């Protein structure tokens, strides 16, 4: 069975999530999109504002999808998939979930990636975060929820770019420091290049940007970003132990981890790793390196993790695995 892509549109209150979604759904490529909208209040309104050529818009209300109604989200997604399989609804080709403005996207992604009833049928396409060009900087200062939303994004859409220049206000630099791995797109009245938002896969070698792995360490708003590097290849066992150790001890301090790994057992075919907090995709194997740099590079976005500690852990684990290796 081909897994259906799902994407999460998140962003702080008033940052333009619904406007973006409404514009996207008018695009011909999104005719076959099922939409789940979460609203915090008892009476939802946002779904009334979304114009769609299809009726596949579902409302989750009465709580926030990242906490109180997470089970409802899983059930709703499961129901949608069952109705699609039964031919009871149009055969939609993707699911888009719009969160509340205060939501933490990580538990939503975790729920849909790991629930045994639906995880095989879905695959994460993208976490898209909207940031208001005019009010975004003040929002980042005042609301840690918005900082985490930006840090966890696969793609950041700077909305209302007609009202303010994010470069001039310093917002562009702040977003780059917070999340250097996410492309930043500008939207005016919700209009943005949809193809850049939904590229089909969580990792696309064709879109590899070496600059992402040359990021200097940044610290901003309680979020720090850094890149671990290693010139010599790692054993696969080391990688496995490293990820387990990080998940076990770093907990919610780890926001995102993305890496290209030179693996001893797979010369010339690097592994791609990609995780949202402690939940990871299975490692994927590329047929070749995407550029001339064949070193291991791991970009970490965290809330206070120490780069040197993680680098030391990696080196100690590799040394222990080497000592056990019989090859």
């Amino acid at each position, binding site marked *: 069975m081909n897994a259906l892509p799902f994407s999460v549109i998140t962003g702080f209150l008033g940052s333009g999530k619904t406007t973006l979604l409404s514009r996207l759904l008018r695009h011909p490529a999104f005719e076959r999109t099922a939409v789940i909208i979460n609203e915090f209040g008892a009476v939802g309104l946002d779904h009334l504002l979304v114009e769609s050529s299809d009726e596949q818009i579902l409302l989750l209300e009465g709580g926030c999808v990242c906490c109180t109604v997470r089970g409802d989200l899983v059930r709703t997604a499961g129901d949608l998939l069952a109705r699609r399989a039964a031919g009871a609804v149009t055969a939609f080709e993707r699911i888009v979930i719009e969160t509340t403005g205060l939501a933490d996207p990580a538990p939503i992604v975790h729920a849909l990636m790991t629930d045994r009833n639906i995880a095989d049928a879905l*695959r994460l396409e993208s976490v898209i975060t909207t940031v208001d060009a005019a009010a975004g900087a003040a929002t980042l200062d005042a609301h840690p929820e918005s900082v985490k939303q930006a840090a966890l994004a696969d793609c950041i859409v700077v909305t209302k770019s007609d009202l303010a220049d994010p470069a001039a206000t310093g917002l562009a630099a702040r977003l780059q420091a917070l999340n250097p791995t996410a492309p930043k797109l500008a939207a005016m009245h919700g209009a943005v290049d949809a193809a850049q938002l939904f590229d089909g896969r969580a*990792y696309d070698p064709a879109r590899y940007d070496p600059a992402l792995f040359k990021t200097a360490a940044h610290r901003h708003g309680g979020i720090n970003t850094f890149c671990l590097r290693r010139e010599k290849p790692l054993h696969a066992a080391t990688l496995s132990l490293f990820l*387990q150790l990080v998940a076990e001890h770093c907990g919610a301090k780890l926001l995102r981890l993305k890496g290209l790994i030179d693996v001893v057992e797979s010369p010339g075919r690097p592994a791609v790793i990609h995780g949202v907090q402690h939940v*990871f995709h299975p490692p994927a194997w590329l047929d070749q390196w995407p550029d001339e740099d064949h070193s291991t590079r791991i970009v970490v976005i965290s809330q206070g993790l120490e780069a040197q500690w993680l680098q030391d852990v990696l080196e100690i684990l590799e040394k222990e695995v080497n000592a056990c290796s019989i090859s």
Partner: protein
Amino acid sequence: MLQDTAWRTRTASVLSGALRLWDVAATVQCDDDGFIVATGGATLRIVPRAPHGWMIVRGAETLGVLAGMPGLLRQLREELAPQAKRGRLIIGAQSLL
């Protein structure tokens, strides 16, 4: 040779960093036998075992014998920071490519 100076420095750094991660106020010192982790209420010796592995000792009592750093950190946390939340790696079913 596992136990060179660089390895000792790195190991002490890993232990110190883990204690900070768990919000445990403690010091880590190296001596000829291994490492000494001292908190306000407890002193633990961490002794490397050839050819690899670890032993955690409190006074005359051996608290554990571990095969590697993952086990060492896990037991240290259980001894010094049992309240620290323990995470678990989850590998989802969804392909990345």
